[in-house]
C-alpha cells in the first residue's frame, strides 16, 4: 500500500564517522511518552479494580514493567515506520525521521526493552500477566504495525486490541487471572479506539494519504467514516453498561459513564452531521489539535475522547479504592 517513493524520504543519520548523535532523550521520545501515560493509567486502573491485594512495591514494579513494555512496542513501531513517519506533519519530528538516530538503534532498543519488561513483570507479578504483556507487544509491533496498518482500513479496529490489553495486564498482575470484568475493561478501550482515531484521521487525511496508510477516510470517504464514528459511539455506550451489570461499577461509575457517554454521543453526532474531512485542500496543520474550519467537530471529539477514557477508568478505580477502604 505504501508508495515505493516513500522509502527515499527517510535519511539515515550516519555521520562521517558512522557514530550516532542520538541522546538519551531521543530514546525516551522513541517510547511515545504521551501514549504511555494512557497505558500506565489504564493498567493501573485494571490493577486497582482486580480482586485481591498486592504488595505496593510489587504493584509499582508491575506498572513500571507495563510502561516499559508499552515503550518497547512504540520503539518497534517507530523503527518499522520511519519511512512513513517522515512524510506526515504529525510524525516527521520523531527521532528517526528527524535524522537523530539510525533504525538499527531503535530496533535494538525495542527488542531489549521488550525482553526486560516481560521478564520484570514475570518476577514482579506472575506468568499470566507477563504472557499477556508479551502478546500485547507482539500484537502491536507485528500484527498492527507490520501487517494491518498498511493493508486494511480496519487497521485500528482490529489493531485497537493492542491498546486495550493494558488494563487486562494490570488485572492479571494483581489476580493472576483473566475474567469477565477484565474483558469488559478491554472492550471499553477496544470500542473507544475507532471513533478516537477516526476523528483524528478526519482532520489528518492529507497526512495519511501522503504516507499511503489506508485509514477509513481515505478508503471509504469522510461521509462513511463520520457515520461509523457515530455507530461506534453508540456501541461504546452499550459496552459501558457491562461493568454495572457485573457489579464492577457502582453509583459513581454509573453517573460518570452516563454523563460522559451522552457527551461522547453528542459530539459523535456533531461529527456525523459536519463536513469534517471534506476539505478541498488536503494540507494538514502541524499540531495535533490545530484544525482548519470544518474539521472542528472531529478535533473536539478527538480531544474529548482522551478525557473520556481517563475519567471512565478514573471512576472505576475510585470506586474500587473506596470499596476496599470502607
Amino acid at each position, binding site marked *: 500500500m505504501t508508495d515505493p517513493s516513500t522509502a527515499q524520504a527517510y535519511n539515515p543519520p550516519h555521520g562521517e564517522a558512522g557514530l550516532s548523535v542520538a541522546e538519551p532523550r531521543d530514546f525516551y521520545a522513541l517510547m511515545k511518552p504521551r501514549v504511555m501515560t494512557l497505558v500506565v493509567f489504564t493498567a493501573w486502573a485494571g490493577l486497582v479494580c482486580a480482586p485481591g491485594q498486592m*504488595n505496593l512495591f510489587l504493584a509499582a*514494579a508491575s506498572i513500571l514493567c507495563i510502561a516499559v513494555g508499552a515503550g518497547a512496542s512504540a520503539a518497534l513501531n517507530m523503527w518499522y515506520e520511519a519511512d512513513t513517519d517522515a512524510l506526515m506533519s504529525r510524525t516527521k519530528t520523531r527521532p528517526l525521521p528527524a535524522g537523530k538516530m539510525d533504525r538499527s538503534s531503535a530496533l535494538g532498543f525495542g527488542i531489549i526493552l521488550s525482553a526486560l519488561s516481560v521478564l520484570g513483570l514475570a518476577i514482579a507479578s506472575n506468568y499470566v500477566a507477563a504472557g499477556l504483556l508479551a502478546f500485547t507487544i507482539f500484537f502491536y509491533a507485528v500484527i498492527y504495525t507490520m501487517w494491518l496498518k498498511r493493508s486494511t482500513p480496519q487497521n485500528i479496529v482490529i489493531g485497537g486490541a493492542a491498546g486495550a490489553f493494558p488494563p487486562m495486564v494490570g488485572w492479571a498482575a494483581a489476580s493472576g487471572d483473566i475474567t469477565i470484568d477484565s474483558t469488559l475493561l478491554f472492550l471499553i478501550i477496544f470500542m473507544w479506539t475507532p471513533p478516537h482515531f477516526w476523528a483524528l484521521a478526519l482532520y489528518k487525511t492529507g497526512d495519511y494519504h501522503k504516507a499511503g496508510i489506508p485509514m477509513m477516510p481515505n478508503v471509504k470517504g469522510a461521509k462513511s467514516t463520520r457515520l461509523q464514528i457515530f455507530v461506534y459511539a453508540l456501541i461504546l455506550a452499550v459496552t459501558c453498561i457491562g461493568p454495572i451489570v457485573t457489579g464492577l461499577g457502582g453509583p459513581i461509575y454509573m453517573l460518570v459513564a452516563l454523563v460522559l457517554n451522552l457527551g461522547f454521543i453528542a459530539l459523535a453526532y456533531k461529527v456525523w452531521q459536519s463536513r469534517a474531512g471534506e476539505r478541498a485542500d488536503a494540507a494538514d496543520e502541524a499540531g495535533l489539535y490545530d484544525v482548519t474550519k470544518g474539521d472542528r467537530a472531529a478535533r473536539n471529539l478527538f480531544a474529548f475522547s482522551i478525557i473520556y477514557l481517563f475519567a471512565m477508568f478514573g471512576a472505576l478505580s475510585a470506586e474500587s479504592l473506596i470499596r476496599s477502604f470502607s
Partner: protein
Amino acid sequence: MNNPHESKLDGYVEPTQQQLTARKRRNYAIGGLLAAFCILVFALMVVKIKSMGGQFPS
C-alpha cells in the same frame, strides 16, 4: 612511505564533538539503567521471597 602509527585504522574518521558528547551521555544512561534494573530485580526477589514466607539469614 606511510607512518605505521598513523595508518593503524584505514578509513578512520575523527568523530565530531557532538557525536562524542552524545556517545558519552548514552553510555551514562545505559550504565545507570542497567544498575537500576539490577537493583530492581534484587529488590523484587527479596520482596517476593519474603511474601512467600522465605527466611533470610540475618
